[in-house]
């Protein structure tokens, strides 16, 4: 697999002609967005001024002006940048993925199926709405891998019967074939209780989590500090989580720089990296040639596709060959 620096080279050398074209498009687009946003903002202020008496009487009336205005603005914005986004994904993200491994398939519209997301059991809350994009799928060294951007939400109703949407998870969701056979369910979550309340009380709290299976205390202090493990089978959890895999998951966590949750269900590994934003989207207000922006695309792709090598998912045990 290509290294991050090789991919960065690819981004700046091979993709440079396309980047330049996109860059021109982006600048045009930016001025167009600004030329629409400024008058719209002014219009809002004027309308607000006209109804100042009503607003002074009831400040909540401001919402009647600004909610439709923001919603309309957001809709208009996504409409304006639609072509640019599509072109960016087709000309930059797709070649970048192909450069990592040309057997990988990319689709800018699809996402990992909701059933897989729910199967992972990483999140216990109900998922009422799921969206996502940038779906990548394929085989790496005979190991099936798929991932995409995911935004999973749940709905609550307030006393007035209005819907409220809460993000359950936003980030990259990766599903890969695992190199060992197993039958149970093992879930690894970021450790919050133990670091907040200390070992003894934190452990006790974790063991009382009714939504989860049995607590599994791992015999690696470093791993225990970062993660908490729940499983329906104490022995199997340790069969999956060998000392080497625990070490590798720690390295992966460090590399990702974001909270990660992992689960092992039905011979598959599921990894959720909570970036809390939509990834692989082109920037409108920053140059695509900016190193920081380029690095984000490259690094995230490298991280997700790299798990097969990183976690040695391609080294299958005898029984799985």
């Amino acid at each position: 697999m290509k290294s991050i620096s090789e991919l960065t080279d690819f981004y700046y050398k091979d993709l440079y002609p396309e980047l330049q074209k996109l860059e021109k498009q982006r600048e045009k687009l930016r001025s167009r967005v600004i030329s629409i946003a400024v008058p719209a903002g002014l219009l809002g202020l004027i309308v607000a001024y006209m109804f100042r008496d009503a607003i002074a009487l009831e400040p909540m009336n401001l919402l009647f002006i600004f909610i439709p205005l923001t919603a309309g603005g957001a809709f208009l914005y996504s409409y304006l940048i639609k072509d640019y986004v599509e072109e960016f994904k087709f000309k930059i993200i797709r070649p970048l993925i192909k450069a990592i491994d040309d057997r990988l398939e990319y689709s800018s519209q699809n996402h990992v199926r909701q059933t897989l997301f729910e199967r992972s059991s990483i999140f216990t809350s109900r998922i009422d709405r799921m969206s996502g994009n940038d779906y990548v799928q394929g085989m790496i060294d005979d190991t099936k891998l798929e991932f995409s951007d995911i935004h999973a939400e749940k709905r609550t109703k307030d006393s007035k019967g209005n819907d409220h949407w809460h993000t359950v998870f936003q980030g990259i969701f990766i599903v890969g074939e695992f190199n060992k056979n197993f039958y149970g369910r093992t879930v690894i979550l970021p450790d919050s209780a133990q670091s907040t309340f200390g070992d003894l009380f934190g452990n006790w709290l974790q063991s009382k989590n009714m939504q989860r299976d049995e607590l599994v205390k791992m015999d690696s202090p470093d791993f225990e500090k970062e993660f908490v493990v729940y499983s329906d089978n104490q022995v199997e959890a340790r069969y999956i989580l060998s000392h080497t895999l625990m070490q590798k998951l720690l390295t992966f966590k460090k590399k990702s720089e974001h909270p990660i949750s992992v689960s092992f269900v039905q011979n598959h590994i599921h990894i959720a990296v909570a970036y809390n934003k939509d990834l692989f989207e082109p920037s409108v207000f920053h140059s695509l040639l900016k190193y920081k922006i380029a690095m984000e695309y490259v690094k995230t792709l490298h991280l997700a596709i790299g798990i097969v090598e990183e976690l040695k998912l391609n080294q299958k045990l005898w029984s799985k060959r």
Partner: protein
Amino acid sequence: MSTSLIILIVIVIALVLMYNSLVAKKNQVDNIFASVDTQLKKRYDLIPNLVSAVQEYMKHEKGLLTEVTELRAQAGKPNLSDADKIKLDSKMSSALSGIMISVEAYPDLKANENVMHLQHSLSEVEEQIAAARRAYNQAVTDYNNALEMIPTNFMANAMNYQPREVFEIVESERKNVNVKELFNT
């Protein structure tokens, strides 16, 4: 009157909780030992095949092969205590790894498909045993902690619970792989 009744109820509840948690910990140890035992049996079942596959070639390692066979016979005896099984397991692990290292010296044997298959099955069982051992050690640690810590230690004393032994990690497993040595062979 009512305060003393409340205190009494609280004490009874605390005693019941302590008793239950001790029983749960003891049962957890026994449960997990059962799965260690299953994995150990799986390994013992592989041994006759392994011995018959390699004995033709290994003329100089007769001692190792008889040791393995003897250990298996010992493990088959009824009424073995858990501690005995733990001891047998560690002997078995080192004897088997001795055989595996010797196999490397016979190119014919190394290329033999049957032996290769056995080697892979063994290493997989070995991995499952390692997992079961780690689970057992954690369960025993929780149990032994409860036996020594206040306040459950008084209750455990009254119930006559005895501390259990953990599996010791085999020295060869703990050692780092010496890459230089690997290239020299």
